[in-house]
Protein backbone atom coordinates (compact mmCIF):
# COMPACT_ATOMS: atom_id res chain seq x y z
CA UNK A 1 0.00 0.00 0.00
CA UNK A 2 1.46 3.28 -1.08
CA UNK A 3 1.52 6.09 1.40
CA UNK A 4 3.40 8.67 -0.63
CA UNK A 5 2.06 12.17 -0.54
CA UNK A 6 1.64 14.13 -3.75
CA UNK A 7 4.41 16.49 -2.75
CA UNK A 8 6.80 13.59 -2.21
CA UNK A 9 5.93 12.14 -5.60
CA UNK A 10 6.67 15.44 -7.31
CA UNK A 11 9.95 16.05 -5.49
CA UNK A 12 10.93 12.47 -6.05
CA UNK A 13 10.39 12.61 -9.80
CA UNK A 14 11.93 16.03 -10.18
CA UNK A 15 14.97 15.94 -7.94
CA UNK A 16 15.68 12.75 -6.06
CA UNK A 17 15.14 10.35 -8.93
CA UNK A 18 15.65 12.81 -11.74
CA UNK A 19 14.84 11.07 -14.99
CA UNK A 20 17.97 12.23 -16.75
CA UNK A 21 20.53 12.20 -13.97
CA UNK A 22 19.39 9.12 -12.08
CA UNK A 23 17.68 6.99 -14.69
CA UNK A 24 19.62 8.10 -17.78
CA UNK A 25 16.40 8.55 -19.70
CA UNK A 26 16.01 11.26 -22.30
CA UNK A 27 19.69 11.85 -22.96
CA UNK A 28 19.56 10.73 -26.60
CA UNK A 29 18.25 14.11 -27.77
CA UNK A 30 20.60 16.32 -25.92
CA UNK A 31 23.74 14.29 -26.24
CA UNK A 32 23.58 14.71 -29.95
CA UNK A 33 22.28 18.24 -29.80
CA UNK A 34 24.44 21.30 -29.28
CA UNK A 35 24.19 22.87 -25.87
CA UNK A 36 22.09 25.95 -26.27
CA UNK A 37 19.97 27.33 -23.45
CA UNK A 38 17.10 28.42 -25.64
CA UNK A 39 16.59 25.06 -27.30
CA UNK A 40 16.90 23.35 -23.95
CA UNK A 41 14.03 25.33 -22.45
CA UNK A 42 11.78 24.81 -25.45
CA UNK A 43 12.54 21.11 -25.65
CA UNK A 44 11.92 20.78 -21.94
CA UNK A 45 8.54 22.48 -22.16
CA UNK A 46 7.46 20.36 -25.10
CA UNK A 47 8.57 17.19 -23.35
CA UNK A 48 6.76 18.13 -20.15
CA UNK A 49 3.58 18.67 -22.09
CA UNK A 50 3.80 15.38 -23.95
CA UNK A 51 4.63 13.61 -20.68
CA UNK A 52 1.51 14.98 -19.06
CA UNK A 53 -0.80 13.91 -21.85
CA UNK A 54 0.84 10.50 -22.27
CA UNK A 55 0.68 9.90 -18.55
CA UNK A 56 -3.06 10.50 -18.43
CA UNK A 57 -3.63 8.32 -21.48
CA UNK A 58 -1.38 5.61 -20.07
CA UNK A 59 -3.44 5.50 -16.93
CA UNK A 60 -6.63 5.07 -18.91
CA UNK A 61 -5.13 2.50 -21.26
CA UNK A 62 -3.73 0.42 -18.43
CA UNK A 63 -7.06 0.34 -16.64
CA UNK A 64 -8.77 -0.64 -19.88
CA UNK A 65 -6.26 -3.37 -20.77
CA UNK A 66 -6.44 -4.89 -17.32
CA UNK A 67 -10.21 -4.98 -17.50
CA UNK A 68 -10.16 -6.86 -20.80
CA UNK A 69 -7.34 -9.11 -19.67
CA UNK A 70 -4.76 -8.09 -22.25
CA UNK A 71 -1.86 -6.64 -20.26
CA UNK A 72 0.59 -7.73 -22.92
CA UNK A 73 -0.64 -5.02 -25.29
CA UNK A 74 0.59 -2.40 -22.87
CA UNK A 75 3.86 -1.48 -24.54
CA UNK A 76 2.40 -1.20 -28.02
CA UNK A 77 -0.52 0.92 -26.86
CA UNK A 78 1.72 3.29 -24.93
CA UNK A 79 3.99 3.79 -27.92
CA UNK A 80 1.08 4.41 -30.25
CA UNK A 81 -0.37 6.97 -27.85
CA UNK A 82 2.93 8.77 -27.41
CA UNK A 83 3.58 8.86 -31.15
CA UNK A 84 0.09 10.21 -31.78
CA UNK A 85 0.41 12.82 -29.04
CA UNK A 86 3.67 14.06 -30.51
CA UNK A 87 2.06 14.18 -33.94
CA UNK A 88 -0.86 16.21 -32.58
CA UNK A 89 1.44 18.56 -30.68
CA UNK A 90 3.46 19.05 -33.85
CA UNK A 91 0.37 19.93 -35.89
CA UNK A 92 -0.88 22.20 -33.12
CA UNK A 93 2.37 24.14 -32.86
CA UNK A 94 2.64 24.38 -36.63
CA UNK A 95 -0.77 26.05 -36.77
CA UNK A 96 -0.51 28.20 -33.67
CA UNK A 97 3.02 29.48 -34.06
CA UNK A 98 4.92 28.66 -37.25
CA UNK A 99 7.96 30.51 -35.91
CA UNK A 100 8.19 28.25 -32.89
CA UNK A 101 7.68 25.25 -35.12
CA UNK A 102 10.58 26.20 -37.33
CA UNK A 103 12.91 26.89 -34.44
CA UNK A 104 12.14 23.54 -32.83
CA UNK A 105 12.79 21.83 -36.13
CA UNK A 106 13.95 18.27 -35.84
CA UNK A 107 13.38 18.06 -32.09
CA UNK A 108 9.67 17.55 -32.27
CA UNK A 109 9.64 14.18 -33.99
CA UNK A 110 12.63 13.20 -31.85
CA UNK A 111 10.44 13.49 -28.78
CA UNK A 112 8.69 10.30 -29.83
CA UNK A 113 11.77 8.24 -29.19
CA UNK A 114 12.47 10.13 -26.02
CA UNK A 115 12.97 7.36 -23.53
CA UNK A 116 11.86 9.63 -20.72
CA UNK A 117 8.26 9.87 -21.90
CA UNK A 118 7.81 6.15 -22.27
CA UNK A 119 9.67 5.82 -18.98
CA UNK A 120 7.10 7.96 -17.19
CA UNK A 121 4.26 5.85 -18.52
CA UNK A 122 5.96 2.55 -17.64
CA UNK A 123 7.16 3.59 -14.18
CA UNK A 124 3.83 5.00 -13.12
CA UNK A 125 2.15 1.76 -14.18
CA UNK A 126 4.68 -0.30 -12.25
CA UNK A 127 4.18 1.81 -9.15
CA UNK A 128 0.41 1.52 -9.54
CA UNK A 129 -0.21 5.24 -9.12
CA UNK A 130 -3.74 6.57 -9.11
CA UNK A 131 -4.86 9.20 -11.62
CA UNK A 132 -3.91 12.27 -9.60
CA UNK A 133 -0.64 10.68 -8.51
CA UNK A 134 0.21 9.90 -12.14
CA UNK A 135 -0.35 13.50 -13.19
CA UNK A 136 1.85 14.81 -10.40
CA UNK A 137 4.48 12.22 -11.27
CA UNK A 138 4.48 13.30 -14.93
CA UNK A 139 4.72 16.97 -13.99
CA UNK A 140 7.60 16.23 -11.65
CA UNK A 141 9.39 14.15 -14.27
CA UNK A 142 8.93 16.86 -16.89
CA UNK A 143 10.15 19.55 -14.53
CA UNK A 144 13.17 17.47 -13.59
CA UNK A 145 13.96 16.75 -17.21
CA UNK A 146 13.77 20.43 -18.12
CA UNK A 147 15.90 21.31 -15.13
CA UNK A 148 18.61 18.83 -16.03
CA UNK A 149 18.54 19.90 -19.66
CA UNK A 150 18.85 23.59 -18.78
CA UNK A 151 21.67 22.96 -16.33
CA UNK A 152 23.69 20.94 -18.79
CA UNK A 153 23.03 23.30 -21.69
CA UNK A 154 24.09 26.26 -19.58
CA UNK A 155 27.28 24.53 -18.48
CA UNK A 156 28.12 23.50 -22.01
CA UNK A 157 27.59 27.02 -23.28
CA UNK A 158 30.10 28.29 -20.71
CA UNK A 159 32.55 25.55 -21.59
CA UNK A 160 32.61 26.63 -25.22
CA UNK A 161 35.11 29.27 -24.13
CA UNK A 162 37.22 27.02 -21.95
CA UNK A 163 40.39 25.24 -22.91
CA UNK A 164 39.66 21.55 -23.07
CA UNK A 165 41.77 18.63 -24.32
CA UNK A 166 40.67 17.76 -27.80
CA UNK A 167 39.78 14.15 -27.31
CA UNK A 168 37.28 14.93 -24.64
CA UNK A 169 35.36 17.53 -26.59
CA UNK A 170 31.81 16.74 -27.34
CA UNK A 171 30.10 13.67 -25.95
CA UNK A 172 32.68 12.61 -23.41
CA UNK A 173 32.65 16.05 -21.83
CA UNK A 174 28.88 16.19 -21.68
CA UNK A 175 28.89 12.81 -19.98
CA UNK A 176 31.37 13.99 -17.36
CA UNK A 177 29.23 17.04 -16.65
CA UNK A 178 26.15 14.87 -16.41
CA UNK A 179 27.96 12.57 -14.00
CA UNK A 180 28.92 15.38 -11.69
CA UNK A 181 25.42 16.80 -11.81
CA UNK A 182 24.09 13.35 -11.02
CA UNK A 183 26.28 13.25 -7.91
CA UNK A 184 25.02 16.67 -6.88
CA UNK A 185 21.42 15.64 -7.25
CA UNK A 186 22.03 12.68 -4.97
CA UNK A 187 22.15 15.22 -2.22
CA UNK A 188 18.41 15.57 -2.60
CA UNK A 189 17.79 12.06 -1.39
CA UNK A 190 15.51 11.86 1.60
CA UNK A 191 13.79 15.10 0.61
CA UNK A 192 10.14 15.05 1.38
CA UNK A 193 10.41 11.86 3.40
Amino acid at each position, binding site marked *: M*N*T*ESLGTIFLNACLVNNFVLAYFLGICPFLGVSGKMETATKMGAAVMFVMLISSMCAYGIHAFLVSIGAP*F*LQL*ISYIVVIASTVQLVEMFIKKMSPALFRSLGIFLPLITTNCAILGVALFQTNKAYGFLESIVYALGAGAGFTLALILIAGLREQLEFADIPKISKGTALTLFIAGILSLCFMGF*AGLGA
Partner: protein
Amino acid sequence: MSEVANIKTQNLDGSKKMLLAMVGIGIISALLIVSTFELTLPRVQRLKAEALEKAIFEVLPGTVKTEAFGVNTNGELFKMKAGDKTETTIYAGFDSNEKIVGYAIEASGQGYADIIRILYGYNPDKEILIGFQVLESKETPGLGDKIEKEVHFLNNFKALDVSLANNGKLENKVITVKQGEKQNPWEIDGITGATISSRAIGNIIGTSTTELVPILYHHYKKNHQKPTESNE
Protein backbone atom coordinates in the same frame (compact mmCIF):
# COMPACT_ATOMS: atom_id res chain seq x y z
CA MET B 1 -8.97 15.48 -66.77
CA SER B 2 -7.90 11.87 -66.81
CA GLU B 3 -4.72 12.96 -65.03
CA VAL B 4 -6.74 14.11 -62.09
CA ALA B 5 -8.68 10.87 -62.14
CA ASN B 6 -5.39 8.96 -62.28
CA ILE B 7 -3.99 10.83 -59.29
CA LYS B 8 -7.21 10.24 -57.39
CA THR B 9 -7.11 6.48 -58.00
CA GLN B 10 -3.42 6.49 -57.11
CA ASN B 11 -4.20 8.21 -53.83
CA LEU B 12 -6.92 5.73 -53.09
CA ASP B 13 -4.61 2.84 -53.92
CA GLY B 14 -1.95 4.45 -51.78
CA SER B 15 -4.23 4.76 -48.75
CA LYS B 16 -5.48 1.22 -49.23
CA LYS B 17 -1.93 -0.02 -49.34
CA MET B 18 -1.04 1.88 -46.17
CA LEU B 19 -4.06 0.53 -44.36
CA LEU B 20 -3.37 -2.98 -45.56
CA ALA B 21 0.26 -2.79 -44.48
CA MET B 22 -0.55 -1.49 -40.99
CA VAL B 23 -3.34 -3.99 -40.46
CA GLY B 24 -1.16 -6.81 -41.73
CA ILE B 25 1.66 -5.91 -39.42
CA GLY B 26 -0.82 -5.46 -36.61
CA ILE B 27 -2.05 -9.00 -37.07
CA ILE B 28 1.47 -10.45 -37.16
CA SER B 29 2.33 -8.52 -34.00
CA ALA B 30 -0.78 -9.63 -32.20
CA LEU B 31 -0.10 -13.25 -33.08
CA LEU B 32 3.50 -13.08 -31.88
CA ILE B 33 2.66 -11.35 -28.63
CA VAL B 34 -0.31 -13.45 -27.70
CA SER B 35 1.48 -16.72 -28.42
CA THR B 36 4.51 -15.69 -26.37
CA PHE B 37 2.26 -14.60 -23.55
CA GLU B 38 0.34 -17.85 -23.48
CA LEU B 39 3.50 -19.92 -23.78
CA THR B 40 5.29 -18.23 -20.92
CA LEU B 41 2.33 -17.66 -18.63
CA PRO B 42 2.31 -21.01 -16.77
CA ARG B 43 6.03 -20.92 -16.11
CA VAL B 44 6.01 -17.28 -15.02
CA GLN B 45 3.18 -17.90 -12.60
CA ARG B 46 4.95 -20.95 -11.21
CA LEU B 47 8.20 -19.02 -10.71
CA LYS B 48 6.39 -16.18 -8.95
CA ALA B 49 4.53 -18.58 -6.67
CA GLU B 50 7.76 -20.42 -5.84
CA ALA B 51 9.58 -17.20 -5.02
CA LEU B 52 6.75 -16.07 -2.77
CA GLU B 53 6.59 -19.40 -1.00
CA LYS B 54 10.31 -19.35 -0.40
CA ALA B 55 10.04 -15.91 1.16
CA ILE B 56 7.15 -16.97 3.37
CA PHE B 57 9.03 -20.04 4.58
CA GLU B 58 11.88 -17.80 5.55
CA VAL B 59 9.87 -15.31 7.58
CA LEU B 60 7.74 -18.00 9.20
CA PRO B 61 10.24 -20.70 10.07
CA GLY B 62 8.75 -24.16 10.21
CA THR B 63 6.01 -23.50 7.67
CA VAL B 64 5.18 -26.19 5.17
CA LYS B 65 1.81 -25.00 3.91
CA THR B 66 0.37 -21.56 3.23
CA GLU B 67 -3.09 -20.09 2.81
CA ALA B 68 -3.90 -16.70 1.38
CA PHE B 69 -6.21 -14.22 3.04
CA GLY B 70 -7.49 -10.81 2.17
CA VAL B 71 -8.83 -8.03 4.34
CA ASN B 72 -12.39 -6.99 3.68
CA THR B 73 -13.95 -3.61 4.28
CA ASN B 74 -15.10 -4.57 7.75
CA GLY B 75 -11.51 -5.07 8.75
CA GLU B 76 -11.89 -8.81 8.91
CA LEU B 77 -9.86 -11.57 7.35
CA PHE B 78 -11.46 -13.74 4.74
CA LYS B 79 -10.02 -16.70 2.92
CA MET B 80 -9.13 -15.95 -0.67
CA LYS B 81 -10.29 -18.15 -3.50
CA ALA B 82 -8.58 -18.39 -6.87
CA GLY B 83 -9.25 -15.24 -8.83
CA ASP B 84 -9.93 -13.03 -5.83
CA LYS B 85 -8.15 -9.72 -5.88
CA THR B 86 -7.39 -7.69 -2.79
CA GLU B 87 -5.23 -4.76 -1.91
CA THR B 88 -3.44 -6.47 0.93
CA THR B 89 -2.71 -10.18 0.86
CA ILE B 90 -1.79 -11.99 4.03
CA TYR B 91 -0.48 -15.52 4.13
CA ALA B 92 -1.08 -17.87 7.03
CA GLY B 93 1.64 -20.45 7.50
CA PHE B 94 1.02 -23.92 8.90
CA ASP B 95 3.61 -26.37 10.14
CA SER B 96 3.67 -30.13 9.57
CA ASN B 97 1.20 -30.64 12.40
CA GLU B 98 -1.34 -28.34 10.76
CA LYS B 99 -0.77 -25.87 13.56
CA ILE B 100 -0.58 -22.23 12.59
CA VAL B 101 2.93 -20.80 12.73
CA GLY B 102 1.95 -17.26 12.04
CA TYR B 103 1.02 -14.76 9.36
CA ALA B 104 3.27 -13.41 6.63
CA ILE B 105 2.47 -9.85 5.69
CA GLU B 106 3.69 -7.84 2.76
CA ALA B 107 4.25 -4.12 3.15
CA SER B 108 5.94 -1.35 1.26
CA GLY B 109 6.97 2.26 1.61
CA GLN B 110 9.39 4.91 0.47
CA GLY B 111 13.02 4.23 1.22
CA TYR B 112 16.06 6.33 0.40
CA ALA B 113 16.14 5.67 -3.31
CA ASP B 114 12.81 4.14 -4.19
CA ILE B 115 10.00 2.03 -2.80
CA ILE B 116 11.06 -0.87 -0.59
CA ARG B 117 8.90 -4.00 -0.47
CA ILE B 118 9.21 -6.29 2.53
CA LEU B 119 7.69 -9.44 3.93
CA TYR B 120 7.51 -9.98 7.67
CA GLY B 121 6.24 -12.80 9.83
CA TYR B 122 3.93 -12.29 12.80
CA ASN B 123 3.49 -14.84 15.55
CA PRO B 124 0.15 -14.10 17.23
CA ASP B 125 0.69 -16.60 20.01
CA LYS B 126 3.71 -14.75 21.38
CA GLU B 127 2.62 -11.42 19.86
CA ILE B 128 5.97 -10.82 18.22
CA LEU B 129 7.43 -10.55 14.76
CA ILE B 130 9.57 -13.55 14.03
CA GLY B 131 10.86 -12.99 10.53
CA PHE B 132 11.74 -10.28 8.06
CA GLN B 133 12.87 -10.21 4.48
CA VAL B 134 13.37 -7.48 1.90
CA LEU B 135 11.55 -8.48 -1.27
CA GLU B 136 12.45 -5.58 -3.49
CA SER B 137 14.70 -2.63 -2.92
CA LYS B 138 16.72 -0.20 -4.95
CA GLU B 139 18.66 1.18 -1.99
CA THR B 140 22.22 2.29 -2.50
CA PRO B 141 24.49 -0.72 -2.77
CA GLY B 142 26.99 -0.86 0.07
CA LEU B 143 25.05 1.66 2.12
CA GLY B 144 21.28 1.34 2.14
CA ASP B 145 21.29 -2.26 1.10
CA LYS B 146 22.72 -3.17 4.52
CA ILE B 147 19.11 -3.52 5.60
CA GLU B 148 19.06 -6.72 3.60
CA LYS B 149 22.26 -8.27 4.86
CA GLU B 150 23.56 -6.84 8.10
CA VAL B 151 23.24 -9.46 10.79
CA HIS B 152 22.69 -7.14 13.75
CA PHE B 153 19.86 -5.40 11.91
CA LEU B 154 18.18 -8.64 10.87
CA ASN B 155 18.37 -9.89 14.46
CA ASN B 156 15.89 -7.14 15.36
CA PHE B 157 13.18 -9.16 13.76
CA LYS B 158 13.66 -12.44 15.59
CA ALA B 159 11.41 -11.23 18.42
CA LEU B 160 10.07 -7.74 17.76
CA ASP B 161 7.32 -6.93 20.22
CA VAL B 162 3.95 -6.07 18.74
CA SER B 163 1.70 -6.91 21.66
CA LEU B 164 -1.75 -5.40 21.89
CA ALA B 165 -3.06 -3.27 24.70
CA ASN B 166 -6.41 -3.92 26.32
CA ASN B 167 -8.18 -1.65 23.87
CA GLY B 168 -7.23 -3.97 21.04
CA LYS B 169 -4.71 -1.56 19.52
CA LEU B 170 -0.91 -1.89 19.46
CA GLU B 171 0.57 -1.09 22.87
CA ASN B 172 3.67 0.53 21.38
CA LYS B 173 4.28 1.53 17.79
CA VAL B 174 7.31 -0.07 16.16
CA ILE B 175 10.01 2.48 15.52
CA THR B 176 13.67 2.56 14.50
CA VAL B 177 16.18 4.04 16.92
CA LYS B 178 19.82 4.94 16.49
CA GLN B 179 22.23 2.06 16.40
CA GLY B 180 23.05 0.87 19.88
CA GLU B 181 20.22 2.74 21.56
CA LYS B 182 17.62 0.00 21.51
CA GLN B 183 16.08 -0.29 24.96
CA ASN B 184 12.62 -1.67 24.39
CA PRO B 185 11.52 -4.83 22.63
CA TRP B 186 9.40 -2.91 20.15
CA GLU B 187 12.28 -0.80 18.93
CA ILE B 188 14.43 -1.56 15.91
CA ASP B 189 18.14 -0.95 16.34
CA GLY B 190 19.08 1.06 13.28
CA ILE B 191 22.17 1.06 11.08
CA THR B 192 24.50 4.03 11.41
CA GLY B 193 25.57 4.28 7.79
CA ALA B 194 22.07 3.68 6.52
CA THR B 195 19.87 5.85 8.71
CA ILE B 196 17.25 6.69 6.15
CA SER B 197 16.89 3.13 4.89
CA SER B 198 16.64 1.62 8.37
CA ARG B 199 14.22 4.32 9.46
CA ALA B 200 12.15 3.59 6.38
CA ILE B 201 11.89 -0.05 7.43
CA GLY B 202 10.73 1.09 10.86
CA ASN B 203 8.07 3.29 9.31
CA ILE B 204 6.88 0.59 6.95
CA ILE B 205 6.58 -2.01 9.68
CA GLY B 206 5.11 0.52 12.10
CA THR B 207 2.32 1.53 9.75
CA SER B 208 1.61 -2.00 8.62
CA THR B 209 1.53 -3.56 12.08
CA THR B 210 -0.60 -0.79 13.54
CA GLU B 211 -3.22 -1.53 10.94
CA LEU B 212 -3.02 -5.30 10.57
CA VAL B 213 -1.87 -6.85 13.84
CA PRO B 214 -5.16 -6.20 15.66
CA ILE B 215 -7.07 -7.77 12.77
CA LEU B 216 -4.77 -10.79 12.65
CA TYR B 217 -4.77 -11.28 16.40
CA HIS B 218 -8.54 -11.21 16.39
CA HIS B 219 -8.66 -13.79 13.60
CA TYR B 220 -6.14 -15.97 15.40
CA LYS B 221 -8.08 -15.93 18.63
CA LYS B 222 -11.32 -16.78 16.88
CA ASN B 223 -10.01 -19.62 14.77
CA HIS B 224 -6.86 -21.08 16.14
CA GLN B 225 -6.14 -20.34 19.73
CA LYS B 226 -6.44 -23.40 21.91
CA PRO B 227 -7.92 -22.89 25.36
CA THR B 228 -5.08 -22.58 27.90
CA GLU B 229 -4.12 -25.99 29.32
CA SER B 230 -3.64 -26.47 33.01
CA ASN B 231 -0.18 -28.05 32.67
CA GLU B 232 1.75 -24.88 31.79
